């Protein structure tokens, strides 16, 4: 983004470049926030409901707009018209501040998220570190919400959430290291530039260590995003609505907005770190076409992981508190450490990596996917869809 603004500033020598930069940034930031983040977070809620419905053999929201597409707007509007109840016993300032912290933390993560080769609000040189730091603001917000509500269910939800997010910060951090080791930079664009468009050049397939790191990262990111199977903070069958129990109207919606938006952040991070981000083959010299293609690539890759997260949510039960502690500390942390050391060793032994190993990794992954698809189709054939309709009406 910087380069564009510098070019524009050069066209107006009378205006201070700093002012152009500030205004340009504000405009671009607002564009990203209002035209991209909010709709994506909202639409994700609709997509999630539709995907669930399909998995659960229901229809899902299909009334508002084509295929129910505008459902998210209707929901937002409805929540705007709801009464904003602040219970008597809450700690009012904290209760009010909590959604600010959550949403600000989630929106600020987008600063360093790449959309395309030239589309990024700011390519911070500490990109990935910045993102893992700023998304932790969400924990503080959730803890604030839980504590300030003066309600035991909220309190339990808030504390659970904090416990969970800080626990999984460590395996997630550890699973980023192999990528950083390979790329030699923390900048998001730098990490993507270290990869290519072809799967064989993705970090994910560099070595078995990287592949395991990728799995660790995805699982850890689900946990940090409070997603099933780690949705303990808002486990509705246990804690009513967790930290959001006392919130109503728009305030409660904002928490969920952040949750859905965070899904997209997770998707972008996974595809940036492990799947080559926006990399496309250089098929044209037209910068705009290329940027659109890169944006589309990034979006599809990121949204694929969003879809996987929804799929997982519709499939798996929820783990218990002691189980997620065990999973994190006794499995993921040691595996993460081994990954770091393993990757470091690999880089000493084979400084440039091995193309053969990469091909083997790709082939193995493909084999796993094929096997998975075969299992899915096996079950689909066996599954009895319940398409009998109303049995009592059919001819006997």
């Amino acid at each position, binding site marked *: 983004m910087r380069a564009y603004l510098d070019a524009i500033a050069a066209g107006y020598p009378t205006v201070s470049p700093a002012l152009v930069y500030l205004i340009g940034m504000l405009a671009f930031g607002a564009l990203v926030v209002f035209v991209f983040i909010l709709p994506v977070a909202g639409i994700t809620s609709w997509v999630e409901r539709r995907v669930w419905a399909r998995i659960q053999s229901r229809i899902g929201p299909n009334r508002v707009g084509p295929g129910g597409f505008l459902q998210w707007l209707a929901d937002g509007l409805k929540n705007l018209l709801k009464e904003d109840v602040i219970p008597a016993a809450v700690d009012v300032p904290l209760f009010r501040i909590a959604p600010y912290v959550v949403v600000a933390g989630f929106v600020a993560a987008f600063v360093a998220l790449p959309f395309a080769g030239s589309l990024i609000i700011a390519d911070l040189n500490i990109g990935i570190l910045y993102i893992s730091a700023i998304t932790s603001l969400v924990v503080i917000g959730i803890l604030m919400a839980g504590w300030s509500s003066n309600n035991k269910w909220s309190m339990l939800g808030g504390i659970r959430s904090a416990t969970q997010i800080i626990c999984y910060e460590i395996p997630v951090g550890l699973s980023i290291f192999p990528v950083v080791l390979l790329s030699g930079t923390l900048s998001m664009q730098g990490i993507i530039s270290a990869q290519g468009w072809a799967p064989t050049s993705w970090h994910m397939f560099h070595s078995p260590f990287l592949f395991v790191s990728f799995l660790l990262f995805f699982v850890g990111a689900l946990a940090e995003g409070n997603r099933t199977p780690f949705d303990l903070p808002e486990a509705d069958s246990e804690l*009513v609505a967790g930290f959001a129990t006392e919130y109503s109207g728009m305030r409660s919606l904002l928490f969920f907005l952040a949750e859905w938006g965070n899904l997209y952040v997770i998707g972008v991070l996974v595809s940036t770190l492990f799947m080559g981000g926006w990399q496309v083959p250089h098929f044209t010299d037209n910068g705009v076409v290329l940027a659109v293609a890169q944006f589309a690539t990034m979006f599809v890759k990121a949204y694929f992981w969003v879809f996987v997260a929804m799929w997982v949510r519709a499939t798996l039960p929820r783990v218990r508190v002691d189980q997620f502690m065990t999973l994190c500390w006794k499995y993921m942390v040691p595996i993460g450490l081994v990954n770091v050391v393993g990757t470091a060793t690999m880089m000493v032994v084979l400084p440039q990596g091995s193309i053969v190993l990469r091909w083997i990794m790709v082939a193995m992954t493909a084999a796993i996917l094929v096997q998975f698809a075969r299992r899915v189709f096996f079950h689909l054939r066996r599954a009895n869809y319940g398409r009998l309709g109303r049995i009592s009406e059919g001819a006997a």
Partner: protein
Amino acid sequence: MSLELEFADGRDVFATEDMVLNMGPQHPSTHGVLRFIIRADGEVMRSAKADVGYLHRSIEKIAEKVGWHGFMPYTDRVDYVAAMTTNQAWAMAAEVLGGVTVPRRGEYCRVIAAELGRICSHLLAAGAMGMDIGAITPFTHAVRERELINDLLEELCGARLTFNYMRIGGVAWDLPPGFGAKVLRFLDHFEPYVDELDDLLSGNKIYIERLANVAVVSRERAIAYNLVGPNLRASGVKYDIRKHLPYSVYPEFDFEVPIGEGRHGSVGDCWDRYIVRLHEMRQSARILRQAIDGLPEGPVIAKVPRNYKPAAGEVHVHVETPRGDQSWYVVADGTEYPYRVHIRTGSFAAMAMIEELSRGLMIADLVALIASFDIVAPEVDR
């Protein structure tokens, strides 16, 4: 925490104040209006005390005022998840007192209706079990299948939940034409579905981790607490009223009584209680097939006077409902009203056990425990 640090007087350094939590009556996972008073240290419960009575509708007292025939619709409300079996229990009690013999076709109709109801109830139990531990999908799938049974039962008696199908002396209506074939068609569809549910749910790693070895009820404790039905059988006690205290035409059918085997943990854990229900659905399907094959001709209801006045006396009947042995103690004094009715239900016995089992469990385990006992609130309170 195994850090063994103690104060000089032996108190644990890490002991914290217990938190008292009310779970219910308005809580998503209490299956109706139940209330548990939980004493917890963080996530670990010291105890969960059940507080019953939120759904008390004095059904037993109503029986004393509405007469023998008139009480039938109320029995639906004792356990609205499986109303057919409660219908049957009341009809049986009244028939024994009045010396009425049900025609064979009537008994077969009852068995068909009751077994369909049992599948319904177990489907709901298995689905809700998944839902309570966080998997949403099994519930919708189970309810989808349950819907098909509801359609069948609607055709049979016009109602989908509170059936009011049985009468003293038989059943209200004969099976509609082609009903048997429809049930068979449903079973052809349903039996593979149970396998599918088994595939989807029972083997899921998280599901097993959440349920295996949680809230283990030993054989002795199960008998001591008088658990009944699937809850008892999950603890390894082979006891089914249909087999061991036979009523109706059940002795004519060939079926097995599944018991908990502790495949993933100890015998009598939550997972066993779940899998026993799953197996029972298969057995119910077996019974249904035999009942439809062997359906005799004839009337479905015996001649019973409108003004039904059984002779003075008392009776204790047992019926195997989806929640186990439901026993009805009915006293007649020779008038057109029962003198006293008492119902002992499976959920009530299970509720009593929760306080003992809950010690040291996590809050999330309590939810799984309630679901695995398949507690239906109205049955607890009546």
